[in-house]
């Protein structure tokens, strides 16, 4: 079977997740991810005709809460845990680019 994932693919995924990986780590994770994908390929080989897709491992749906306001967190406490704040807001470094 052909290699299910290349080192370049792993580098791309790492970039999307903002992970800085060394060359050794890239090799290591390429091997590990290939094993995961190989397992997925095994599952894919099964005939699932007529089996509805599983959306969630729990056999429940419609877990809902009523639309009732509850007290929020204290702003000073929240902002105290941030690296920087200003005028009641979180202060973040310069953003490069418009919002998605």
């Amino acid at each position, binding site marked *: 079977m052909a290699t299910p994932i290349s080192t370049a693919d792993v580098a791309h995924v790492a970039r999307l*997740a903002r992970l800085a990986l060394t060359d050794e780590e890239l090799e290591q994770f390429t091997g590990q991810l290939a094993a995961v994908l190989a397992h997925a390929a095994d599952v894919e080989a099964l005939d699932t005709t007529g089996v509805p897709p599983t959306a*969630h491992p729990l056999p429940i749906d419609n877990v*809902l809460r*009523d639309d009732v306001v509850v007290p929020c967190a204290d702003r000073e406490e929240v902002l105290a845990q941030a690296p920087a704040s200003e005028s*009641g*807001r979180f202060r973040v470094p310069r*953003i490069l680019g418009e919002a*998605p």
Partner: protein
Amino acid sequence: MTAATATEWETVIGLEVHTELCTATKLFCGCANNFGDQPNTNVCPVCLGLPGSLPVLNRMAVEYAMRIGTALHCTVQSSLFHRKNYFYPDMPKDYQISQYDVPINADGWLALPDGRRVGIERAHIEEDTGKSTHVGESGRIHGADYSLVDYNRAGVPLVEIVGRPDLRSSEDARAYVDELRAILVATGASDGKMEEGSLRVDANVSVRRRGAPELGTRCEIKNMNSLRSLGRAIEYEAARQIAILEDGGTISQETRHWDETLGRTSTMRSKEEAYDYRYFPEPDLVPIAPSAEWVKAVADALPPMPADRRAAVAEAAGMAPDADPVVTVVRLDLDPLLNAAVAAGADGELAVKRLANEVAAGLEQASTLDPRAFAAVVGMESRSELTTAQARTVLKELLEHGGDPAAIAKAHGFEAMAAGALSGVIDQVIADNPGEWDRFAAGEDKVQGFLIGKIKAATGGNADLKEASALLRARRG
């Protein structure tokens, strides 16, 4: 671009509309959903994305989404949530919970006021992002020194309505958003305020040679904050694309930013820079599977939509459903007054005209207007007990001070202007101006203006001049 080339091209538009829902709380936590509160006062571990916090779905947000889907003739179905991953400080979790391949509402349509249908691909639930303020000279991202983030809006429930590319002009696009906004407000799901950002519109715009079977390459335009800027942005963008194509160039698929001040769009990001969101199923949420009973209950409880109301007003007035007075009466929610007036025996057409003009002009007082009093004024006008000018005066006073229409008319001396009284005034004018009357009676029509002027003066301007002309001509025999 010349007029000749403009007609060779067809603009194709599909709109994506985000609406905030009027819930008391956010989508996945019990923080208040309030516009304009002090920054970061409506936040908690869930909407701040703190480790270990878990989302729990707001029942009312689901209900509102179902109302919207039903009003847009969608199939309301079982649906799933996904994580849309991206790194941006407006989303502290580094992902937005949205619906991806299985939205709660699919495949519907919206009818424009003129009856044309615009396809709705889907209307799904997702959470809003926080609000960032860029600090620096420009006030925009470029040139900012740093940014400040308020998470009050993070996690506020949204429904995104994705329309099909069925619109063909900026007028179409505006009519679509106008109608959609009215529908959203009618469902109670949204306040429809574009200025406050509770309704946001992105436009996918492409152009093609008229009759071409394939769609052109599209650009997505963002940052239109009003219907007017939506129209301007679409026209600018279509003209830009046509100019490029006529020069032999090609359109690159990209996201473009509308600058209201400069009146133009500019590149925000190209297709190559497009985000790879790595959607995957949200493991912390289970599916929404509305029962048939719930779907039916939502449909049964839906109030009449604007199109239904326009049809009813049009029927009562004997006008077309897209006639301006009909549209105005429904837009301003004046149709209950119409119904009350018609039920009290008033003429429908006259009532619609008075509502669309005088009552619309005094809209702040319209809620205090007694429907029976309004019906009485319209009734007096339709029985010619009041002229149009008099009816307007009475209505204006009724709106400002309330009271009894008959008493107001009497106080103004309007009651004397019944048709019988007008006849007496005409007798007097004829007696006072025998020479002019003789000339008029002999067939000299231009003297009519003089006689009418005398009648007008004698009645203090309150006579129904059409009626007076008819009476004069009848006297002439």
